[in-house]
């Protein structure tokens, strides 16, 4: 029989909250962490809003050599990995390192460092044939981002399979899904899995400006991320990371670990339609949901809460609303659906893992985080999106979904420790 996989440690670095506890406090307060971009002068850009994390790498314990070497996204990933490991109670130095793996997601990886090095090498863009005298010896690490999971592997002592899953905005769901597969099939016993992205840089802001995917509500940054709201006008770019300790259910139970949740099902599909566009019918996302439920041996009616992709673009909100109806039928109308992007923005490849963290915390606390800024109903979005205020509700099974450029549509089912039979 295939091994069951559980989450026994969580680490989060997010806008408005470093650490799992602060993250959950933000999500249940209904406050938002979106603001006018402070990392650079955003005035030349169409979208000037982002959800920035107040991340202090020195306070995180990174030394001068690590600060020199590691891109910001790597620092986020390693900080989360350390938190997750400490929280898991698992003694990593007593594990067989060859049975420990890493699966890290990221969409744009070392974007921050690429931009910094580019400006030096090209003399602020003036030279096409860049000047190698200004070359950083770490530039190769920014060109080829698999250094990120390597940094996590070194930090935790992993020598099993180490992977970087880079599926754009579903990376954070797919990297955890990948880790689940590796444990199920026996390629590893413990996986550090999650995702990190720190894309708040001029090039990334400009490339979303170009396709008007991001908000231009620049005069009201705190209320700019408005998934499912009739007045939404695009997503809010964000940064962040979340990492998990995943292990096989039986060994977690045997060591008396605190089990946060089980991951009984995951699936991904592609829409093969358009690199950035979505059809309104939600067909492929619905298929991913259906397969994830099937793998979980869960009925649609068992879903107590849907943690939505909810990016706050009209095409997305319509697309996923259709997908839920298609996959869950009438039960979609009875199920609370909310988007944490309303509070922490859209951190591209990282957000899927942050949403898994939010789902896990929702299961543990019996609280559904709200969709902030949802005041105006949209006839195309007619489900219960949990506006403004968190809601207490006993949760046994949560569905979390992601949708991304390239056509990726992913879905994961999470089950509470109690529902998984791990609590007496």
């Amino acid at each position, binding site marked *: 029989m295939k091994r069951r996989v559980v989450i026994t440690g969580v680490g989060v670095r997010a806008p408005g909250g470093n650490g799992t506890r602060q993250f959950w406090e933000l999500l249940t307060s209904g406050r938002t962490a979106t603001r006018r971009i402070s990392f650079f002068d955003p005035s030349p850009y169409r979208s000037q809003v982002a959800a920035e994390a107040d991340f202090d790498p020195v306070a995180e314990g990174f030394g001068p050599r690590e600060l020199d070497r590691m891109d910001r996204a790597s620092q986020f990933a390693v900080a989360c990995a350390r938190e997750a490991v400490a929280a898991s109670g698992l003694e990593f130095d007593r594990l067989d390192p060859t049975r420990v793996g890493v699966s890290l997601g990221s969409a744009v990886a070392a974007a921050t460092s690429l931009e910094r090095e580019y400006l030096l090498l090209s003399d*602020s863009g003036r030279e096409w044939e860049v000047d190698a005298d200004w070359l950083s010896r770490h530039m190769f690490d920014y*060109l*080829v981002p698999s250094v990120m999971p390597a940094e996590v*592997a070194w930090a935790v002592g992993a020598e099993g399979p180490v*992977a970087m899953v880079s*599926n754009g905005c579903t990376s954070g769901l797919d990297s955890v899904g990948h880790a689940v597969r590796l444990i199920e*099939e026996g390629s590893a016993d413990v996986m550090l899995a999650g995702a990190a992205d720190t894309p708040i840089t001029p090039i990334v802001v400009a490339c979303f400006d*170009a396709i008007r995917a991001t908000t231009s509500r620049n005069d009201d940054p705190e209320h700019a991320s408005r998934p499912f709201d009739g007045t939404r006008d695009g997503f809010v770019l964000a940064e962040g990371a979340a990492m998990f300790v995943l292990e096989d259910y039986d060994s977690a139970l045997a060591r008396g670990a605190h089990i946060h949740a089980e991951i009984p099902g995951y699936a991904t599909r*592609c829409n093969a339609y358009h*690199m950035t566009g979505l059809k309104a019918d939600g067909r492929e996302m619905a298929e991913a949901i259906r397969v994830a439920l099937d793998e979980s041996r869960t009925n649609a009616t068992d879903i107590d809460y849907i943690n939505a992709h909810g990016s706050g673009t009209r095409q997305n909100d319509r697309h996923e609303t259709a997908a839920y109806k298609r996959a869950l039928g009438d039960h979609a109308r009875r199920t609370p659906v909310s988007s944490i992007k309303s509070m922490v923005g859209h951190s591209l490849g990282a957000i899927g893992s942050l949403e898994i963290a939010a789902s896990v915390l929702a299961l543990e606390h019996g609280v559904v985080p709200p969709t902030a800024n949802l005041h105006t109903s949209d006839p195309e979005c007619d489900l219960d999106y949990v506006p403004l205020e968190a809601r207490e509700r006993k949760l046994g099974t949560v569905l979390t979904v992601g949708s991304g450029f390239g056509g990726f549509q992913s879905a994961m089912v999470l089950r509470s420790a109690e529902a998984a039979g791990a609590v007496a």
Partner: protein
Amino acid sequence: MSILITGVGVVAPNGLGLEPYWAAVLAGRFGLGPVTRFDVSRYPATLAGQIDDFHAPDHVPGRLLPQTDPSTRLALTAAAWALQDAKADPESLTDYDMGVVTANACGGFDFTHREFRKLWTEGPKSVSVYESFAWFYAVNTGQISIRHGMRGPSSALVAEQAGGLDALAHARRTIRRGTPLVVSGGVDSALDPWGWVSQLAGGRVSTATDPARAYLPFDEQAAGYVPGEGGAILVLEDSAAAEARGRHETYGELAGCASTFDPAPGSGRPPGLERAIRLALTDAGLGPEDVDVVFADGAGVPELDAAEARAIGQVFGSHGVPVTVPKTTTGRLYSGGGPLDVVTALMSLREGVIPPTAGVRSVPQEYGIDLVLGESRTAPLRTALVLARGRWGFNSAVVLRRPEPTS
């Protein structure tokens, strides 16, 4: 269930398409030369494996040209060739029954360099509407999926030069979980000036100027590698599904896969390549004695060559198996390197001939490996092992088997 390779598409510096590539490899013909896309003379290294005979409009639909990096155009071409070669008509298959798993290392780097330049010289409004997806590492998976209507489980992996083998392993996993056909492999290219110096920053690129003596893995004069562009895309299928659609001819079986990671620097623990080899063999249900040829990673850096020779020796014994590195003729292709080696190994198995490690003349005795030098070597071949290592500690191994003779 066995996982078969039923089609291949090759885009290599010494051959565009399987046949010219295979002929070049057998003859030891180099595809390396000075970079011609910019004035490379100002940089310390000048040689690369460039694909010079690829005219994108001949291969890629016109509407995709403005939105694709050179690496994606090559990947789209290789994928289309692989599907043709497999005689697989995506239109006749169910969309969810086909997936795409590619590896990538550099993303659409030439494309993104141009957009960085536009941003900083002309301002944000000049940035292309295609930049958001022409750059990212999932671009080849997404574009192949769209072009061929493939809606099954798909993914993109990054593990520097090891990623291409990891992609094939994940394609196999995807098929085992119920998706009958997966297009997989890897293609990279970063031969714009910024991409070029970024590769040099790694500190392992050869500064030699003679293409035949620049990338010399396992040679006593090894002094770095030559980077290249290209790679290979393969069609992998569940044997029963291939049979059911009447596809009886195959290149062989992807019989075993494994990936490991080296310990953190300074830990004093042993490196992971030997373990990857043993795990891949176990996964294939085979022993070292079953392996007829090893396609080595061949870093071209003395301490890395020594470490690989040691791992091979520990599994197979001194001079225990023929070893070859045909990629000396193409340069290291990052995510494309492993899949191209897999194609080379499949052709070797099919034809019973091991291509040489062109350029290498003298292997230090202490390496203890039987490196195929000079001429290709004829031998009855049933099983091949392909190795790839990615910078920072990634080790991947796959085991390939020749197709069973049809009864």
